[in-house]
């Protein structure tokens, strides 16, 4: 179970390769379910040029840890990984990576979706978009 919040851009698939290489569950997982959330160049009908992602240092980590532990209790998984970007980012940038390893696919699918839904509803992150003419806080979490 690993959680990271970072201001630097990250390449999710490179990070997955690196994480798996040092993992102790090689040969035991038959299923990896991965979700990557990326920044789109449009939202709610407007072009978005940049985005600022604020978080609550301490509480954000605490809730990512909490939902990771909940997922591990609910499903028979081998490991999970969450990486979330903060600070300024640009269209096409990865924002979040969630990955779950399990012996079988149902647990991996269920747990990865649970992590994303819970992250989106409980982890304190906030997005502010830079449009051509103004900035605005995102108030819908679709």
């Amino acid at each position, binding site marked *: 179970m690993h959680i990271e919040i970072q201001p630097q851009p990250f390449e999710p698939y490179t990070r997955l390769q690196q994480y798996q290489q040092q993992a102790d569950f090689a040969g035991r997982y038959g299923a990896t379910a991965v979700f990557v959330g990326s920044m789109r160049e449009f939202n709610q009908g407007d072009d978005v040029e940049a985005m600022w992602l604020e978080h*609550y240092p301490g*509480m954000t980590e605490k809730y990512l840890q909490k939902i990771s532990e909940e997922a591990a209790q609910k499903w028979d998984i081998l490991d999970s990984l969450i990486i979330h970007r903060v600070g300024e980012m640009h269209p096409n940038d990865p*924002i979040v990576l969630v990955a779950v390893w399990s012996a079988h696919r149902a647990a991996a699918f269920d747990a990865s979706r649970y992590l994303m839904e819970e992250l989106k509803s409980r982890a*304190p*992150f*906030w997005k502010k978009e830079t449009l051509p003419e103004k900035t605005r806080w995102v*108030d819908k*979490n679709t």
Partner: protein
Amino acid sequence: MSDAITVKFFASLREAVGKADTEIPALEAATVLQAWQQATGNMVMPENTLMAVNMDYVDADTHIKAGDEVAFFPPVTGG
């Protein structure tokens, strides 16, 4: 332990209140709602405001004490 309560604001609430954090005397705030009133000078709290004490979600009528960290923020939009 400090005899103050730390109050934090995030995102659009930080901008609306005009500060990221402040301290209030513990005696003046018995509940989270009272901490809001004290720290904002009785601003109206936006309807969907989320509240946390010591980094756990709570309700407005949760009791707080000296040394607590109280936070107010809008619905989260990460991921």
